[in-house]
């Protein structure tokens, strides 16, 4: 293997418990998003667009759909002779094997993968977030600051700061303190779960962390605090764009609705920063004479006879005559019969909705229709 400047390690093993039945059969990074994508498309496309061509994807929970989706990475131009995408599941060795115990342990168990590229830097990211970011700029920042570690940070509303890992920085953006979900946050700079490490430093800290039986083997809780404790050069890199953790049904619904603004904060069709995804190979969408489609995203393969307002329709969705879809997310290949009303709902892939049904409500809750069941959560 020839040497790489930077290798990305993409954490994609999360279950996404708070997404309920959406993640019964697939990991959170594989959850459909934005009418066409899966959540992981954003980080894989970011890597590709940032010129990072070596990406290890760490999988664990329900990996099949994710594995087959990633394939050899050709959709993201990550099918490379040297580097490219590699799916890294937990494995057995001569002395047994184990599941990934935490984010740091997952990377620790795959240090052999990183070593073969002998990189200067390792980028650690998570496949759970929706954002567009040029990692090469963060890498430049990391080099310019002669940092050992750089953490992507984002200003969050003060009243939400206690839900995040919060960074306290000095005047030069050096991180002097890291608080995981503090009751009384001192700043509103939240960690985005994006880290760049000097590989030699990371290797040392991962190895030491592994030897500490009390560690939870987590980047936020263990590795970063240890580096700050040792007064290593740990810097905060501020990001001003759109970033969303779509870990709950509410946030997933909101992030989809954000795309429907006239000038959305997250632009999906920027030719200079395409979001790549696996193509479902469907003909263009057909909008029938009786249909009315406004403020919505609709993907290929859809056939619409009814009314669609402020909704996101993935590929292969059929909406029958006289049906109304409002404020909803309809995932791939959902067949909606005639005279159906769906409101404030997320409908899981492949669901068949019989004629005349009413799903969801306008009482301020979001309903998830999955596996033939309806679960409502407050908006």
């Amino acid at each position, binding site marked *: 293997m020839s040497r790489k400047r930077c290798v990305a390690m993409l954490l994609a093993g999360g279950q996404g418990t708070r997404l309920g039945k959406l993640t019964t059969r697939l990991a959170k990074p594989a959850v459909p998003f934005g009418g066409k994508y899966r959540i992981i498309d954003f980080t894989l496309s970011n890597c590709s667009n940032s010129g990072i061509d070596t990406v290890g994807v760490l999988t664990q929970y329900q990996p099949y759909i994710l594995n087959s989706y990633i394939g050899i990475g050709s959709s993201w131009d990550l099918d490379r002779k040297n580097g490219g995408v590699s799916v890294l599941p937990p494995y057995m060795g001569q002395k047994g094997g184990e599941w990934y115990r935490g984010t740091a342990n997952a990377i620790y168990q795959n240090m052999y993968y990183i070593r073969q590229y002998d990189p200067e830097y390792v980028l650690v990211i998570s496949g759970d977030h929706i954002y567009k970011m040029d990692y090469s700029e963060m890498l430049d920042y990391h080099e310019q600051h002669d940092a050992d570690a750089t953490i992507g940070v984002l200003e969050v509303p003060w009243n939400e700061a206690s839900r995040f890992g919060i960074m306290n920085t000095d005047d030069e953006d050096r991180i002097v303190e890291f608080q995981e979900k503090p009751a009384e946050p001192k700043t509103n700079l939240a960690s985005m779960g994006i880290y760049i490490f000097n590989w030699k430093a990371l290797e040392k800290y991962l190895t030491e962390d592994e030897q500490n039986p009390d560690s939870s083997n987590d980047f936020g809780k263990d590795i970063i605090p240890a580096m700050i404790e040792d007064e290593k050069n740990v810097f905060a890199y501020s990001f001003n764009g759109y970033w969303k953790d779509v870990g709950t049904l509410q946030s997933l619904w909101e992030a989809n609705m954000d795309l429907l603004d006239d000038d959305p904060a997250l632009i999906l069709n920027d030719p200079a920063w395409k979001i790549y995804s696996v193509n479902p190979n469907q003909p*263009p969408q057909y909008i029938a004479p009786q*249909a*009315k489609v406004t403020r919505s995203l609709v993907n290929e393969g859809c056939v619409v006879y009814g009314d669609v307002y402020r909704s996101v329709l993935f590929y292969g969705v059929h909406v029958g005559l006289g049906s109304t879809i409002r404020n909803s997310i309809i995932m791939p290949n959902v067949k909606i019969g005639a005279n159906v009303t769906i409101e404030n709902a997320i409908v899981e892939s492949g669901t068949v909705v019989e004629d005349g049904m009413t799903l969801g409500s306008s009482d301020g809750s979001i309903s998830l229709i999955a596996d033939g069941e309806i679960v409502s959560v407050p908006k």
Partner: protein
Amino acid sequence: MKKVVGVINLVDEKNTLSELTNHRSFASVPFAGRYRLIDFSLSNLTNAGVNTVAVFTREKYRSLFDHLGSGREWDLDRHQGGLFFQPPADEERRSTGDIQSFYENLSFFKRSLSHYVVVTNGQLVWNVDFDQIIEEHEAENADITVVYKPCDDPYTSGSHYNVLYTNDDERVDRLNLGVEPLPGDNVFLNTFLMKSSLLISLVEESIENGKHESINEAIAANLDRYHVHAHHFGGYVTFIDSIESYYRYSMEMLDPNVTQELFYNTGPIYTKVKHESPAKYLESSSVSNSLIANGCTISGTVENSILFRGIRVGKGAVIRNSIIMQKCEIGEGAVIENVILDKDVSVSPNESVTSEDQPRVIAKSTVI
């Protein structure tokens, strides 16, 4: 399974689509919102398990080459077989017709070690099951199977069609080349199947005797010598030979029964992927009876029209009975009616581009 190679023969294409074929081959004319005409025959071949396909071309193949690339979208990026793009070789011309291309590529047929060759073209919009034709060919013990469709289009024009006549056993006893078909005539779809060894000997013989200029002539002249079986294609197929028929067949794509048959009932139709976002409909959009591709952003009105990928329709703009190709910009308040806009056309706000009856074509990259 016996090995089959495919040929998409574009050598004798007629450039009858005026502006649309001035700078591109017939086979790469955009169709149905996201496809090029060649996608249909090429996908049909790969759906039948044909993994070695040669594309014979003579001219205007730049956009075709760009479209097909490595053949990856059709699963034709292979170590064994794959896509072979065959522009004219730098050889002495032995024939003015397409026999020359077959002759120049005899080594392709010999090297492929295939049992059968399927030859088709790049201008038919159809979804044909070639496996079924091979089965029928074997069951009939035929030497050559030719595919035809009774002409159901009263508007076909130009005498560049080939019409065949059969006896009661669906055996071809006459093949008239270069005629204008009447409704009901059996139009040869320039698609046929034969053993590779037979094709090689027909081509060698034609060139050596200087007898035939085209492969169709060679078939027509040998109806006594070989058992030429006619396969009646019963599905949907287009006879596109003019702007008028291009427009008319395009509008048939607004019939969900037609698109169901073309895109879902047999195999999928593949095309070059552009990674466009889903189409976005804004508050003021009003779309009816239209085919909309991904990457479009619509604030205006669209009726009875086909929008290709990446089109912007401004507020108050109206598009009726029109075909708008990739990356066109329709400014606010513009009116487009009965026109075909080729790629990258930009219509300024409040301009109007209309035509009374015949569809009018606006050439690629025009600014209005």
